């Protein structure tokens, strides 16, 4: 009887450890975007990206606070929030997606895996399905995710007045860098 209970105990323990280890988390993910236009180049950085990765299902979720993007000029930041992103009405950008080729990755083995992620990107209240290339690096129990892709400003209903058409690019280059650690319940 004791042996059986102990066995059940150990079994649950293993299951629970597995349950913990399949969820990876970061709150310091980094997203930068770059706008290349004839008059000026604009770069913005956000180091407060929150993201969770479920390695078993190959699912990603991202939440990006628009007000956390930092610009070189204060006025750019103000215009970005007030005039373009309307961050009071749409405070966050979100992404929820799945790794389409999950079988190629072994999260328990150190390595470098090129992947494709497909999912829904919500910016400025508009949701679009996107498919982006990326890489996943597993090292020392941590997971690094990296991706570079571009978005068309017009697709997300962000209006650029004709007067600043030479200051702001129509397509923005976006870089995502997240270092995930095993999720611990606080």
């Amino acid at each position: 009887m004791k042996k059986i209970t102990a066995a059940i105990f150990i079994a649950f323990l293993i299951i629970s450890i597995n349950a913990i280890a399949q969820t990876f988390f970061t709150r310091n993910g980094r997203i930068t975007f770059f706008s290349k236009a004839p008059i000026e180049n604009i770069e913005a950085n956000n180091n407060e990206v929150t993201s969770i990765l479920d390695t078993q299902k190959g699912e990603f979720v991202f939440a990006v606070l628009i007000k956390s993007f930092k610009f070189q000029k204060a006025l750019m930041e103000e215009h970005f929030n007030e005039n373009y992103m309307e961050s009071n009405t749409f405070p966050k950008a979100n992404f929820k997606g799945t790794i389409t080729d999950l079988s190629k990755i072994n999260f328990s083995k150190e390595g470098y895996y090129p992947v494709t992620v497909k999912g829904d990107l919500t910016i400025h209240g508009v949701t679009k399905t996107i498919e982006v290339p990326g890489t996943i690096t597993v090292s020392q129990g941590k997971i690094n995710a990296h991706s570079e892709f571009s978005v068309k400003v017009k697709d997300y209903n962000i209006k650029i007045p004709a007067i600043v058409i030479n200051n702001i690019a129509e397509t923005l280059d976006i870089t995502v860098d997240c270092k995930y650690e095993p999720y611990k319940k606080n």
Partner: protein
Amino acid sequence: MKKKLISIVISVFITTVSFAQDTTDISKLLEAQLKAEDQNKTRYITATFKTTRLINGHSVENTAKGVLDLKIDHRFDPIGGSSGGAYNFFGLDHATMRLGFDYGLTNRLMIGIGRSAEGKIFDGFFKLKILRQATGKNAMPVTVSYVPTIAVISFRNAAIYSNFSRRLNFTNQLIIGRKFTEGLSLQTMPTIVHRNYPVDNGPQNVFAIGVGGRQKLSKRTSFNVEYYYQLPAYKVPGTYNSFSVGFDIETGSHVFQVHLTNSTGMTESSFIPQTIHSWGKGEFSLGFNISRVFTIGKKHNKTW
């Protein structure tokens, strides 16, 4: 012993189940994380007003660190009344101006200088944000700024200004402002103007309470109102309270402010105690402020 074991098993089972529940929906987990983070971080409210002036006086807004704001302000003569009318092209024949610079030393401390044509007045001030409206950890309902201003009248008149100290006027102002919604911001401005040598038979100390605000009409335009009420016991005889309405129009790095006002002075010690025109007599002027910002400092830093 058996009971103990069973209880351990049950507790482990419960934690397992709870973990399993969490991991089934990472979207919900993310929401919970964001909620916790919102409470742990202080997020300051930005863009309460388009620029550092409401109309004649200060708004609760500062320029950011390392940002220089060039101000070119004009006030024409009154549209109506004795100096207005068709003969004077409704006041447009004559204008008075102030040229000034504002500069953000930090995100909370701004300094500024200016020169007004009327009275040949030099002014200098600093504006310190004592409290900043914020949500989250250190939530704060209002922004409170302190603005002391000194104005030097350089007008030549040896009989009146027999010594330098007679040329000095000091203003101490508190601005308490709040961005209520994305469109609506309101502020109140208790103010003391101390004149070393008033030439208008008024008291040395003039106490006034200002109220004002803006309502955005679109992303880049707003409607503004500003009123300074001189407390009757300290009011300068023969003057009126300053009342102004106007619009902010933002285009890129410029903010244009176009307004109607009964004041022609553009520093606190001028327009608060020395507004001699009356709206009731049709004596209100067209005026405009042009603000152009330049980023001087290398990179602006949110935390000072």
